[in-house]
């Protein structure tokens, strides 16, 4: 009989859960409350680990509300149901004990809707659900708007709400329907491993050989990233931080404290990873802000904006209705450097991948121009044109040459919509410099056969084409002189009538327009990251500013700064009479300078400067920049928080309210709480909180949302999320730049002339001698510093002789920038990590079989990627997914320094070029630079192992990488 039962778990289930299950309540319900009014009739109770459900029969005159509360140790959730008039509610008596009668699968779980957007700034991503049991995370899953259960009993949205939010595109007889489930990124499904990572910072930590007070002999700044940490209490940590702030500000001035709160991070809102430090410092006189530059948008920002405005990032705006426009009007899309199946995921989940299959179904061709067969190209491309890295400008120019000489461009459009096209034409035809930019000229430069260039130009001219990118355009324009290909791309779009149906540029960010704005500006503390301070340091020049003690830039470099800002010169420090001072203390939230920004071996030098007397970092994981801190404050991961989520980038917009479902790991606190603890010690707690409780801030933020006009906070609480309904007229809304196309005078662009500027008068006036960013975009390869060039990173310079491969470093597939490097299940994916002969999981280095053979490299070998700036290691992935002459490694792998200049983790930003896209554009160029790749021989590795035994004795688990224990004295105890 026993055996029979075990073979039939279905029957066992029915028998045990009885009435409760049939009513669709959670299995093993603990507490059942019946009644129309709050608090009526408690029918059961939880005692310790023992769960008791008592039964009462109650008949009600209704409609009434049944509230089912399921409780387990450490967790409670309430489900609410309304039943019709006259219903008899019967709850059958059952008596169960957890761990006794219930099998594990039957134990009660609670569910919490939140979001795993990884882009910070209060910007959620796709909604997702966390299921929790006994205070521990069971799973992270997609949110089924209509309920995960067959009977829909767990759905809190109504059919009407779903119908209003779930969009459809009908084009050419085929329909694309958004899913009735959220479509989260792959990180979501492993995120509990981030929350429970062995690398979590569990307690406040202090570096063992650092003492407060600023005495160079006692801060041992040279040991940052070398010496370990020891556990201290929150009380001690916050006292130290507050005292250091007071000391540094009184010795040097308020602006001597540097607040870093930018870059990417978990998509929290009130509990945001960005800006809590700034809020705190604002209560004591201010700070020097680290400005977030246009890190993923450099070429657009420094180049394309001069052609078409499109404030503030420089990719096309508006993006309205582009999904619909492409489906109806395009014959072809050209994905130039983009990989939306990869780079969109952290913002909006996976909808683009499915949409690209729909385009194929519609017969819309997809051409991918990129050195690497990226993840989107690998499955969606009808044609892959593998261009040499950072030579796209040659291909652009040859296409323009074909169109001009074959007269297959829209002259009438250019007459009415552009300025200075003749100057560009003169350059293309060689009238200006005697060099016609023919396919024959371009072919050896860009590595694409002449016949393919011609075919591409003609095919494009004969079709209606939108140029598409993933976020930031991948390797196209995060490069030395990236403003040139970016400008040229806009030139080409203009030549084909930019803005007419089916001719736009998109980064696939914006789905159909919704009725109520989901996003509430930048949220609260995050807002501070957008507000300039009197003194600031642009992120790409941080190292220079610290080490040289001063810096100058054209433009603040701020991602949100308008075009005109690029003609303003800024200096650091500002004059002393205005409060200017060098920085002497840093307080960073969620920093990743080493893994996401440029030339970061230099950044490490800056971290080790004794000018910086104290580095405070708050972060959930002991990784990357954290290793250089003096004080570390442990903060929570997104699953531990309670917060509001405004999921605006999602394929279906949602606003969610998430209550606490698990206890914070160790002694970690939410970012805002951590900053508040310091405010308490500074005596400015009241100013920090503005007298509002967290609950009042939730209400405040909710009040800022357009959704609050349609739902009460109590309704949100009850439903846990609400869906963004579409505008009724979204399909009729003007697509992209169609208004500009139809009437450029009435709908001007935001650049000075309001039309496409092929020639920029303003660049000519302000930078008359700039040969790298001339008034007209050109083929720029740079050269030696002696000749006045900013970069020598091309295949035609001196350095190429030593470093004959060009590294492509995209936004990573299996991380979001530096986030999520520790998820063991991702690390098992063949292109995520490669196991070296020593058992270490190396970051893959893609290399073509021909380039591998000539270097004696075999698949799986440990290799080094290097130039004069340093060495990063990797695992050879010998593949046809990369063209010869190029090599590829994602950026952002977790730092694991063997010694200065050698990183085992494979964080190639360490060896990227010095600051600047070009001389007058102090952004970052972190892809498309010269390296050589060589096999690391066992002798070389043994040599390092002997020379740097500490680096090889860190606590390392191949499943997740370095752990907390490797950097903390006494480890977990």
């Amino acid at each position, binding site marked *: 009989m026993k055996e029979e039962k075990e073979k039939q778990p279905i029957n066992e289930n029915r028998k045990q859960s009885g009435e409760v299950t049939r009513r669709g309540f959670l299995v093993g319900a603990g507490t059942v409350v019946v009644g129309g009014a709050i608090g009526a009739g408690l029918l059961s109770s939880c005692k310790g680990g023992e769960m008791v459900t008592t039964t009462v029969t109650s008949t009600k005159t209704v409609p009434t509300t049944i509230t089912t509360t399921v409780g387990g140790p450490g967790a409670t959730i309430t489900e609410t149901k309304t039943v019709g008039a006259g219903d008899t509610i019967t709850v059958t008596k059952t008596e169960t004990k957890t761990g006794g009668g219930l099998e594990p699968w039957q134990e009660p779980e609670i569910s919490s809707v939140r979001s795993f957007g990884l882009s910070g700034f209060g910007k959620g991503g796709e909604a997702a659900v966390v299921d929790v049991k006994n205070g521990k995370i069971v*799973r992270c899953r997609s949110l089924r708007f209509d309920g995960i259960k067959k009977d829909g009993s767990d759905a809190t949205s109504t059919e009407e709400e779903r119908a209003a939010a779930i969009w459809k595109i009908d084009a050419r007889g085929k329909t694309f329907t958004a899913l009735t489930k959220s479509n989260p990124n792959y990180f979501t499904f492993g995120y509990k491993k981030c929350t429970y990572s062995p690398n979590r910072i569990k307690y406040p930590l202090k570096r063992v050989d650092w003492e407060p007070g600023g005495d160079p002999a006692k801060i041992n700044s040279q040991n940052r990233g070398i010496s370990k940490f020891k556990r201290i209490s929150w009380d001690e940590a916050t006292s130290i931080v507050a005292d250091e702030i007071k000391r540094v500000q009184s010795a040097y001035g308020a602006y001597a404290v540097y607040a870093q709160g930018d870059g990417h991070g978990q998509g929290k809102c009130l509990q945001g990873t960005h800006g809590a430090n700034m809020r705190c410092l604002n209560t004591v006189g201010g700070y020097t802000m680290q400005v977030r530059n246009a890190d993923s948008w450099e070429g657009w920002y420094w180049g394309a904006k001069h052609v078409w405005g499109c404030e503030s990032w420089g990719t096309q705006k508006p993006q309205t209705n582009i999904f619909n426009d492409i489906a109806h009007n395009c014959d072809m899309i050209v994905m130039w450097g983009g990989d939306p199946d990869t780079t969109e995921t952290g913002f909006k989940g996976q909808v683009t991948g499915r949409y690209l299959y729909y385009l194929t179904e519609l017969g819309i061709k997809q051409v991918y121009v990129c050195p690497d067969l990226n993840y989107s190209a690998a499955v969606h491309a009808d044609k892959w044109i593998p261009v040499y890295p950072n030579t796209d400008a040659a291909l652009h120019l040859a296409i323009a040459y074909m169109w001009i000489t074959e007269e297959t461009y829209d002259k009438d459009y250019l007459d009415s919509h552009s300025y200075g096209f003749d100057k560009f034409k003169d350059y293309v035809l060689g009238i200006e410099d005697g060099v016609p930019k023919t396919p024959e000229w371009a072919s050896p430069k860009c590595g694409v056969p002449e016949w393919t260039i011609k075919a591409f130009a003609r095919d494009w001219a004969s079709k209606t084409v939108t140029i598409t990118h993933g976020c930031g355009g991948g390797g196209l324009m995060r490069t030395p002189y990236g403003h040139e290909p970016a400008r040229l791309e806009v030139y080409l779009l203009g030549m084909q009538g930019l803005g007419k149906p089916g001719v736009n540029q998109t980064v696939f960010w914006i789905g159909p327009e919704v009725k109520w704005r989901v996003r509430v500006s930048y949220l609260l503390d995050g807002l501070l990251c957008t507000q300039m301070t009197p003194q600031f340091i642009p992120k790409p020049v941080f190292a220079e500013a610290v080490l040289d003690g001063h810096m100058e830039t054209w433009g603040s470099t701020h991602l949100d700064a308008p075009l005109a800002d690029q003609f303003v010169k800024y200096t650091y420090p500002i004059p002393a009479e205005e409060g200017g001072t060098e920085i002497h203390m840093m307080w960073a939230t969620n920093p990743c300078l080493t893994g996401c920004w440029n030339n970061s071996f230099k950044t490490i030098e800056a971290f080790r400067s004794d000018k910086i007397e104290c580095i405070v970092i708050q972060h959930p994981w002991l990784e990357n920049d954290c290793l250089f801190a003096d004080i570390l404050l442990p903060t929570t991961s997104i699953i531990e928080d309670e917060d509001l989520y405004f999921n605006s980038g999602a394929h279906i917009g949602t606003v969610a309210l998430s209550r606490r479902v698990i206890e914070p790991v160790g002694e970690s606190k939410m970012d805002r709480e951590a900053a508040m603890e310091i405010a308490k010690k500074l005596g400015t707690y009241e100013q920090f909180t503005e007298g509002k409780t967290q609950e009042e801030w939730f209400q405040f933020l909710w009040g800022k949302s357009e959704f609050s006009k349609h739902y009460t906070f109590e309704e949100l609480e009850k439903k846990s999320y609400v869906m963004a309904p579409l505008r009724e007229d979204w399909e009729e809304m003007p697509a992209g730049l169609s208004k500009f196309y139809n009437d450029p005078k009435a709908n001007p662009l935001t650049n000075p002339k309001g039309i496409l500027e092929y020639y920029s008068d303003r660049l000519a006036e302000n930078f008359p001698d700039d040969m790298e960013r001339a008034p007209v975009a050109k083929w720029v390869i740079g050269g030696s510093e002696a000749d006045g060039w900013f970069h020598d990173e091309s295949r035609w310079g001196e350095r190429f002789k030593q470093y004959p491969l060009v590294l492509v470093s995209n936004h990573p597939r299996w991380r979001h920038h530096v986030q999520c490097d520790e998820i063991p299940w991702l690390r098992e994916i063949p292109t995520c990590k490669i196991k070296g002969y020593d058992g270490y999981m190396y970051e893959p280095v893609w290399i073509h079989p021909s380039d591998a053979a000539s270097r004696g490299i075999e698949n799986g070998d440990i290799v080094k990627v290097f130039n004069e700036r340093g060495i990063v290691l990797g695992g050879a992935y010998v593949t046809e997914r990369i063209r010869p002459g190029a090599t590829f490694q994602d950026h952002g792998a977790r730092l694991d320094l063997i010694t200065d200049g050698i990183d085992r983790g494979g964080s190639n930003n360490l060896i990227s070029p010095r600051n600047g896209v070009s001389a007058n554009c102090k952004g970052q160029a972190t892809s498309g630079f010269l390296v050589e790749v060589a096999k690391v021989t066992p002798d070389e590795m043994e040599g390092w192992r002997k020379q740097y035994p500490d680096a090889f004795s860190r606590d390392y688990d191949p499943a997740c990488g370095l752990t907390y224990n490797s950097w903390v004295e006494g480890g977990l105890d």
Partner: protein
Amino acid sequence: MKAFVFDSTICHGCYQCQLACKDEHCGNDWTPYAKPQPETGHFWGKLNEYVRGTVPKVKMSYVFVPCQHCKNAPCIDVCSIGAIYAREDGLIIINPKTCTGCQKCIDICSYKAVYYNSNLDIAQKCTGCSHLIDRGWKEPRCSDACPTLALKHGEESDLRDLINRAETLYPEYGLTTRVHYIGLPKKFIAGTVYDSVTKEVVIGATCTLSGDSTATVVTDSYGDFWFNDLEVGTFSLKIEASGYPAKEINSIKTEKDVNLGDISLT
């Protein structure tokens, strides 16, 4: 009866099926359906990836391989203690309470879908997330996580249309499976036809494949031709375009996908 359908032509390799499976089973005890999966090394729902062709004619294909829940499952027969059983809905379960870890089921599974958990000394594999299905869920984790709907799970009767045009993975194993495949990667022969004198591609050239199977395509606006869905075999290709002598390429073997490169007709 439950069934899976996997359509390789709309799988973009996000691995969410494999990841969600691990999220569900690693560290979670679903006795009597399954005990916890080890943190790494098991792939109860495994996504395999294939890089096909050479630069610049390269494509990727992904194939999801869980336990096939065979109707004539050899693992059930080989289990001497009767720890493996088929449920009424067809899903096959290894009872973690009674499995003795003899590993005969692992050896006999042609699909290599059964794994040994050395810590627990038991065999483990895909349960079709029957612990969730029995709890009222619509789907197992893998298909629930699939963003492109490449992986579907449900009642065989509801999936009948898809199953009718699907095939079996490795039919040579002779097993009647409940996982059905659409668009399994076969082999391709591709190339670009051009004129090396004018440095132009040749558009509209007729390419005729003969040998183990026959097909005809014309080159597209890039001079490209693609013969897809070929079996492993030996083929000959004839390329004809007006104004050019015909060109023949023989003995093309498709053990691997073939990129013939840029072929000049002059």
